[in-house]
């Protein structure tokens, strides 16, 4: 059904394909950038991706202002400040994020400080606080899951004050998302599976929540179908460039979907579990997705049922009675989780992920204060959250 009113915004240029990276220097030139700073991490550098990146600048006449390759797994304000100072010292004029969610969010944080000419990131935390057009930002994802290359959000930890700072602004949208299959070929199977389930959650939640709209639906459905067709191959045969590129595209489409229609209880629980028990985000998404759908069944059975088509294919969809499609959708996700668990050991419950039962109440309380639940179709209180967590425990 068409919503009475909606908005959809995605100005990010998507560049996808074989050796797409080689177009980067000319794309930077179009953006007016001459001296980019590269933000990446040790894992990416160790996998040889930085070398491929530098090679793509060969004969371009462009200078890479600096390469910072020490972003930790959780982006922090200290690292953002350190990179900002290197950016200024080396007179850089643009930023290239080469990495996963943490690297991309760190790059967005650096862009805030260099654009606002400030050293206090906390001042800009929250929604719609930013008021200036940012420096050119190009994102090259090395995982296929966060979708951060096309979203308006970033989350950065303030280690000194012990808090997570969320940032949400259309100014945080990168200028370019560059998807090159070489950048995800070395991603280990378990991380491939976890990030794929993160993308799956983005697409599924964006399709069932209150802010869904025809544009985000189109991206979500396309993303789910592409994940269904490629995820098991990507985990079992990581060297398949076509499959990797498909997963990168699926992740970006899911990112566009949820950036325009938000997520829901699965993410609220995942953020809370991640914050308290340090479960990797993709692992948490994999654990909570079927339980989140089950919880939302009374409010959006029809929409969950419609997801059976991209999730299981036309034949299964056609032979499933309409009244059973929502349950079948959930069953298919459960089966997918089992297949991934068999292939690479991706945890399917909280116990397997190392969470102890005494933490569940704390997670439940944190989940109901997570902004992700605002657009969820069903109002989740602490008791509901605890009930879901108990189901997901073992």
């Amino acid at each position: 059904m068409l919503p009475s009113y909606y908005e959809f915004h995605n100005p990010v240029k998507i560049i996808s394909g074989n050796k797409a990276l080689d177009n980067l220097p000319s794309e930077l030139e179009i953006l007016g950038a001459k001296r980019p700073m590269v933000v990446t991490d040790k894992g990416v550098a160790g996998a040889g991706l930085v070398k491929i990146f530098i090679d793509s600048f060969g004969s371009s006449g462009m200078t890479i202002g600096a390469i910072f390759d020490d972003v930790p797994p959780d982006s922090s304000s200290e690292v953002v400040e350190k990179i900002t100072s290197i950016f200024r010292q080396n007179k850089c004029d643009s930023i290239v994020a080469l990495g996963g969610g943490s690297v991309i969010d760190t790059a967005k944080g650096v862009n805030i400080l260099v654009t606002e000419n400030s050293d206090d990131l906390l001042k800009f935390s929250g929604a719609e606080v930013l008021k200036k057009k940012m420096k050119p930002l190009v994102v090259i994802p090395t995982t296929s899951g966060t979708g951060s290359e096309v979203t308006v959000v970033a989350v950065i930890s303030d280690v000194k004050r012990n808090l997570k700072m969320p940032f949400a602004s259309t100014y945080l949208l990168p200028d370019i998302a560059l998807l090159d299959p070489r950048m995800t070929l070395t991603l280990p199977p378990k991380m491939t599976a976890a990030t794929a389930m993160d993308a799956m959650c983005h697409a599924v939640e964006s399709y069932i929540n209150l802010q869904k709209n025809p544009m985000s639906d189109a991206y979500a459905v396309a993303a789910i179908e592409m994940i269904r067709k490629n995820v098991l191959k990507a985990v079992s045969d990581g060297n398949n460039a076509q499959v990797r590129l498909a997963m990168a595209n699926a992740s970006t489409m899911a990112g566009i979907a949820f950036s325009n229609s938000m997520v829901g209880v699965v993410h609220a629980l995942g953020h809370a579990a991640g914050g308290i028990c340090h479960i990797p985000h993709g692992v948490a998404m994999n654990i909570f997705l079927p339980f989140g759908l089950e919880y939302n069944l009374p409010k959006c059975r029809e929409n969950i049922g419609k997801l059976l088509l991209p999730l299981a294919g036309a034949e299964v969809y056609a032979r499933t009675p309409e009244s059973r499609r929502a349950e079948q959708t959930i069953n298919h996700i459960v089966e997918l989780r089992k297949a991934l668990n068999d292939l690479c050991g991706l945890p399917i419950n909280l116990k397997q992920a190392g969470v102890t039962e005494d933490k569940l109440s704390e997670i439940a309380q944190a989940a109901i204060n997570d902004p992700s639940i605002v657009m969820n179709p069903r109002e989740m209180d602490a008791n509901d959250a605890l009930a879901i967590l108990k189901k997901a425990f073992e």
Partner: protein
Amino acid sequence: MNVQYRPIVPSIKRFKIFVIKIVFIVLGRAFQSASQHDEEIKKEISSWRDGFTLIMKVMPDGPYMGLEKKNNMLEFKGSQLKQADLEIYFRNVESAFMIMTPQMGSHQAFAERRMSIKGDLGIATAFTRALVIVMSLLYPEFIVKRLVKRVPPLTLKRAGLRVWLYTFGIVLAR
């Protein structure tokens, strides 16, 4: 023939702005009163620092109202606050009128981007829950059902608080 091009100053939507101002006063006073009596609202605001301020404002240049956390309650500040720690915007007069009258709930308004937030999203989430409770106290259940995802339970204490709000609470803001 010379055509004269003159600047056009659109008329002011006086009636709708008047209604919004009245609702802001009622809502602000209801918040001040309910935050002193309702345990759920007290719980929602308990983690906010003392002196925390928020405003609800109609964009771009419409009416606004402010609230400040003082002594574990929300104090109605009318239009005294120009800026606040948390700012909740109505995108235009028509959207604000629709939400204030109340033809549309806050969740749908956020979903349709008729309302937006500047500031801490966690506190905004807690405020939205408190707003739902105040709405459920101000309006009968058949209206509230259309506005919220889940109607807060009308306990005996809440029924008493509703009577208090309608008789003295809003007038005295106590």
